[in-house]
């Protein structure tokens, strides 16, 4: 895509200069915004991540330095949290895809004949957004507490051990992540499946492909843009999420993710360099993982 972009601009080298000046002028607010609210914090974050503690300072007093060892220290200390973050995010993304694909397929393909049903179902997918994300997560914490109807029923049916509990476990955190990000997966999937040309599927069957083969060879490739967009929209925020895993919500001391570690380092331990270094590692790791993913799924030109 990058190449394509360059060749098209080079193909019209005679573009009048005044126009580009106007374009630059129009871009100025955007550039300023990015410099002010993205680039500056980023530089400040990088500088903070390299700070060293002040020799005579009190807790939380740091000086600018080039203390790159901060990165080594935080990785050594918090590698389980880093792995856990990506592990939870990956499982939640796969689960969200497994739930969302049939849902989006039904709304976008099967419900095409009934536009009203289609809109009602879409509203239902978006409806949770009308209530704060925090409130919904807290509500789940109540619904899944030890003496709640759900858990006591599961125990009565012997589906759960009598002394087991759900809140505060990795399963609860992954559940929360999956639940909270399902709409982000469903909507992009819906937009691609909604435009899926059913004649391709008919053509597949005409060529003696069984339904599974048609799905694998035709439907999935055609809905790839939605899958990529949905998984990215789910995976990236899920990896950095610190609400679901927080001890105040669905998590416990064994389920803390990178976001929680950053929060604790920033607010409680006042270890700003460690918090900054972890944030940069999180960003860099997501960037690399997403890069590999996009490359692998062969959809660079879809982004």
């Amino acid at each position, binding site marked *: 895509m990058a190449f394509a972009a360059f060749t098209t601009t080079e193909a019209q080298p005679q573009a009048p200069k005044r126009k580009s000046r106007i374009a630059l002028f129009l871009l100025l607010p955007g550039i300023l915004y990015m410099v002010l609210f993205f680039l500056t914090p980023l530089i400040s974050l990088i500088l903070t991540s390299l700070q060293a503690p002040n020799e*005579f300072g009190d807790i939380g007093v740091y000086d600018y330095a080039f203390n790159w060892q901060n990165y080594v220290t935080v990785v050594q200390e918090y590698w389980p949290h880093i792995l856990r973050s990506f592990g939870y995010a990956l499982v939640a993304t796969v689960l969200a895809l497994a739930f969302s694909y049939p849902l989006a397929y039904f709304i976008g393909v099967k419900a095409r004949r009934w536009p009203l049903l289609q809109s009602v179902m879409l509203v239902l997918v978006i409806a949770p957004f009308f209530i704060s994300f925090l409130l919904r997560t807290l509500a789940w914490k109540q619904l899944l507490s030890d003496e709640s109807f759900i858990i006591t029923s599961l125990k009565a049916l012997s589906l759960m051990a009598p002394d087991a*509990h759900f809140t505060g476990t990795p399963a609860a955190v992954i559940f929360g992540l999956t639940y909270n990000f399902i709409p982000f997966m469903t909507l992009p999937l819906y937009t691609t499946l909604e435009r899926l040309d059913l004649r391709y599927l008919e053509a597949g069957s005409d060529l003696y492909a069984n339904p599974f083969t048609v799905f694998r060879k035709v439907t999935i490739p055609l809905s790839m843009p939605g899958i990529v967009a949905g998984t990215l929209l789910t995976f990236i925020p899920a990896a950095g999420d610190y609400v679901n895993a927080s001890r105040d919500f669905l998590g416990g001391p064994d*389920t803390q993710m990178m976001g929680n570690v950053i929060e604790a380092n920033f607010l409680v331990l006042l270890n700003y360099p460690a918090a900054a270094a972890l944030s940069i590692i999180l960003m860099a790791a997501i960037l690399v993982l997403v890069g590999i993913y996009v490359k692998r799924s062969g959809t660079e030109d879809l982004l």
Partner: protein
Amino acid sequence: MESLVSPRPLPQDPMIRNLIAQARRAQLNRRTLLAGAGAGATALALAACAAGGGATKPTPAADASSTDKTLNWANWAAYIDEDDAGNYPTLVAFTEQTGIEVNYEVAVDDNNTYYGKVKDQLALGQDIGADLSVLTDWMIARWIRLGYGQELDHANLPNLANLTPSLQNPDFDPDRKFSVPWQGGFAGIAWNKEAIPGGLSSVSDLWDTSLKGRVGVLSEMRDTMGCIMLEQGVDISGDWGDEEFSTAIDLLQQQVSDGQVRNIKGNSYLEDLKNEDTLAAIVWSGDITVINAEAGDKWEFAIPSAGGTLWNDNFIVPIGSPRKTNAETLINYYYEPEVAAEVAAWVNFITPVVGAKEAAIAIDPALAENQLIFPNEETLSQAHIFRSLSGAEEQKYQAEFQAILLGS
């Protein structure tokens, strides 16, 4: 543009040198130049703003109280008497008496988050928008250490004579030069009376196998560790060090890894007690009175047999506040026993004002008997204050405690 391209000796500052070198290396197209220069300038400006060093203490702002009859008070939720219309009766009376308009804000949710919000302004000696903040002992200790509080003029605080003797001379603020107690409370144990009819008497009872996975402890290090260390026979107000602390940390770590402790929380531990995720916990005294009133008389609080912790929240005048005298007038007002009794009757915490108990008898005799609001000598002898930590100790112990909270 020319000036950047033309060779000139580079400035000394390594950060600026770097930026210039980068700018030169880059092909000077407009976008990179703009972005580089803009970001560099703003980042440098930011870096200059941020409080570095920490060697110099900020200086107090000039007092304009004589002309400016207003006051901003940052306090915690449900921490002052409130009527059904949402007014604060004692504050209304204060304004009538003194003519000082008080802007009461529930701005403190947590010592750490509040500190995170105001610390940079404090370090620069700027007005943080509060003329009085109410913070817990250990946070007050940090503010005093860093010079973030204004020295109080005791001539404006005649009622300070009513301060409980035991609180007059804390190690973090000898003679109460910078801070004055607002309310206090105990950390101890509480249990669900229906699930544990026999009750609990000590912190060790929390580690009973029948309570596995149903025990909560506080994320406030001094209260949780204080209770555990007391159980281990340590005098937490006295002289203890790394060894005593790590013995207690090892025990807590063990209980958390064994799954005995379900969760480690701040104020939201009350939700866990209510939905019965936890049946017993280390808790704050006043809260139990409140949830018993809210959700049926189901819980009981006790100071553990080996003792519990006693903490206080204190008034402090932030360094950048230009209304110190107004603040002192308000502190003095709340040290009148009748006013203190009115507040105590509402908030259910321990009032530091001598004479408030007698005043409370006039409001409600049963109230005056409540040991959690007006503890007698015997109750007070069971409660201990966690000693002040130096900056280095605070960093070390907090890190060890947080390591448990964050798991691995």
